[in-house]
């Protein structure tokens, strides 16, 4: 009896002392020229890494060993070693890289270069530039279909989602969406592609096989001007049931029921929310709040903001170790 009690106590203690998983998040601070490292156990910034000028797009390599960060004003992508948490290399991107996507194997990187209307293709192992794809004016959002066959790029002034065949590297379709498309995200089952339009104030839902807009998510927040609602980052749960959409200067993240494409809730976060990332266990969603210099932590199941973490100046992108 005593023994059982003791075991119970010990396991209870263990639960308190070592939560299931602690993850590491990397946040790019656009103005600070730094990357903040956040420990999701203590919810504190454990390190601030100096990087190049105007860091925005940020992502882990597939093996989790490195973090790539696009430093637009230095016309390159820097590589941070996750172990030493320092910049160790850079990649030959085109001018002014902003967002990028990598293939499933983590071998090929596709970079949106805002300044010259191209998407640059980079071999990650050889650190070599393989070629460029001409797209619309001001390419920005980048994603790859779950099967790896289709690369999506959105162009902000052309207002299109370009469908690029990853084998031939040719554009096979262009879908017109609302003004200033900034971010693209596939459902995990590949059945839909969601594209946010910052100035249009909507998220277009595209059938990736027919290349047609089949629906739109719209937003309405009482007491807020329509112009203040500017959708940017999108996060979708693995079961494809719930999507989260960052609404920029509306200072809110919309919770969207994916099936009905209706907003079920608005979560108040920091000012000018840009992008977001889930912890791998999908318990938490972290958002970057550009103007208030912080990161909001959302409890995904409860759909509540539970924490705010101060980071560097004008946080923009975020990635979490796999």
């Amino acid at each position, binding site marked *: 009896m005593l023994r059982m009690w003791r075991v119970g106590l010990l396991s209870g203690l263990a639960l308190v002392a070592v939560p299931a998983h602690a993850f590491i998040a990397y946040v790019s601070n656009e103005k600070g020229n730094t990357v903040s490292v956040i420990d999701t156990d203590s919810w504190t910034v454990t390190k601030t890494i100096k990087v190049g000028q105007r860091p925005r797009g940020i992502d882990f390599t597939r093996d989790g060993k490195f973090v790539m960060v696009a430093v637009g004003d230095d016309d390159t992508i820097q590589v941070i070693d996750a172990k030493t948490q320092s910049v160790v290399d850079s990649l030959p991107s085109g001018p*002014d890289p902003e967002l990028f996507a990598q293939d499933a194997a983590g071998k090929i990187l596709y970079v949106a270069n*805002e*300044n010259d*209307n191209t998407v640059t293709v980079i071999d990650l192992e050889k650190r070599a530039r393989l070629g460029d794809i001409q797209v*619309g*004016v*001001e390419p920005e959002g980048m994603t790859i279909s779950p099967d790896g066959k289709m690369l999506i790029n959105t*162009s*902000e*002034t*052309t*207002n*299109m989602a*370009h469908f690029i*065949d990853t084998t031939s590297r040719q*554009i*096979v*379709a*262009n879908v*017109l969406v609302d*003004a*200033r498309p900034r971010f693209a995200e596939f459902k995990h089952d590949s059945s839909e592609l969601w594209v946010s339009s*910052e*100035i*249009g*104030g909507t998220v277009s839902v595209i059938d990736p*096989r027919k*290349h047609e807009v089949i629906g739109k998510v719209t937003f309405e927040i009482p007491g807020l*001007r329509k*112009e203040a609602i500017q959708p940017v980052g999108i996060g979708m749960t693995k079961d494809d049931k719930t999507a989260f959409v960052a609404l920029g*200067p509306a200072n809110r993240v919309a919770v969207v029921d994916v099936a009905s494409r209706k907003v079920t809730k608005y979560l108040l976060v920091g000012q000018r929310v840009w992008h977001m990332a889930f912890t791998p266990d999908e318990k938490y969603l972290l958002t970057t709040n550009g103007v208030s210099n912080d990161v909001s932590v959302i409890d995904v199941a409860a759909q509540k903001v539970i924490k705010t973490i101060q980071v560097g100046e004008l946080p923009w992108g975020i990635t979490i170790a796999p």
Partner: protein
Amino acid sequence: MIRWLVGLIAWSLAATSALAADPVTIGVGYLGIAGTRSTLSLVEQPTENDGVAGARLAIEDNNTTGKFTGQRFTLEERRIREGEDAAQAATALAEKNGFIIADLPADALLKVADALRDRGTLLFNAGAIDERLREADCRANVIHTAPTRAMLADALGQYLVWKKWSRWLLVVGSHDEDKLFADALRRTAARFGAKIVQERTFEDKGGARRTDSGVTQIQRQMPVFTQQAPAYDVLVAADESEVFGAYLPYRTWDPRPVAGSAGLVPRSWDASQDQWGAIQMQNRFIKLNSRRMTALDMQAWTAVRMIGEATSRTNSGDVRKVTDFIEGPDFSVAAFKGTRLTLRDWNLQLRQPILLVDGRMVVSVSPQEGFLHQVSELDTLGYDRPESKCKLK
């Protein structure tokens, strides 16, 4: 999966054949006055291609999109010389161009608008800031991408009031357009609770804008001109004619900031504007034109982009269809100002934030926080619907 691939191949074939067809050509004309006006500041001296350079960039931007939509945009420039008839030039330009961007004085613009009314040509006023073109003299075939004097004055006034610089010393030039800007500033002061403590007129007695003797005399004249003023917070200058405004900063009798036509200036655009993705646009402009982008360039760019936006949304180059879409309730255009720009349906004026610039930096962007409106905060700038005298026809 296979079915998907087959579908994809079939689609690509269809797409290829669609692209192989001749693109639809959309002709855009640019009508301006030959020659440039002289400014006090050499760095602000406009180039010969002021305005049209912005239109040219937008044509390039539209053509990049046009590659995917099967549309091709062309630009034809026409400059009117002294003594030439604007209406005649416009009619000739309208032969091949369903859309015309105009940078003309108000009277010439009205003549052109009336001459082209029956042709169905859509005109964009990219240059004239006169209130009357949107009020008593408004026209149903003219869209205004240039802001108005009242919009500019309100944008400045909101900031000065926010800054609690509410006692203004107003100095007005002796030309008609200076007086019109002063009217707009007086209206702004009354609307937002600023007080014009005194008005002074700066007579234009002629004279060159560049002299070898330089600043020596100006340094003595300006303090004398501004002395013995009642207590004030900011000197507001109305000098669109470029006679004295730029001489005022740092030379006032009392140490006071200058705003209006010099110092802190309200503008639709500035070479220093770099937020909301504008840096990409500025870079594209410099690459194409080997100089920096002005407000007039931006007003012309926006006009041509509005055409491109509407042709891609309607998938048509038909002027009637495109015009209906632009004037319809669903139209908006993105122009690197942090918010979508829409048209005031009662007078076809483009709603837009106004930048307050000092020549090197964007100091602020109006509307300012706290100036509220039931429809759009952008309508706190300039004449609002209930005040409008415009009857579109």
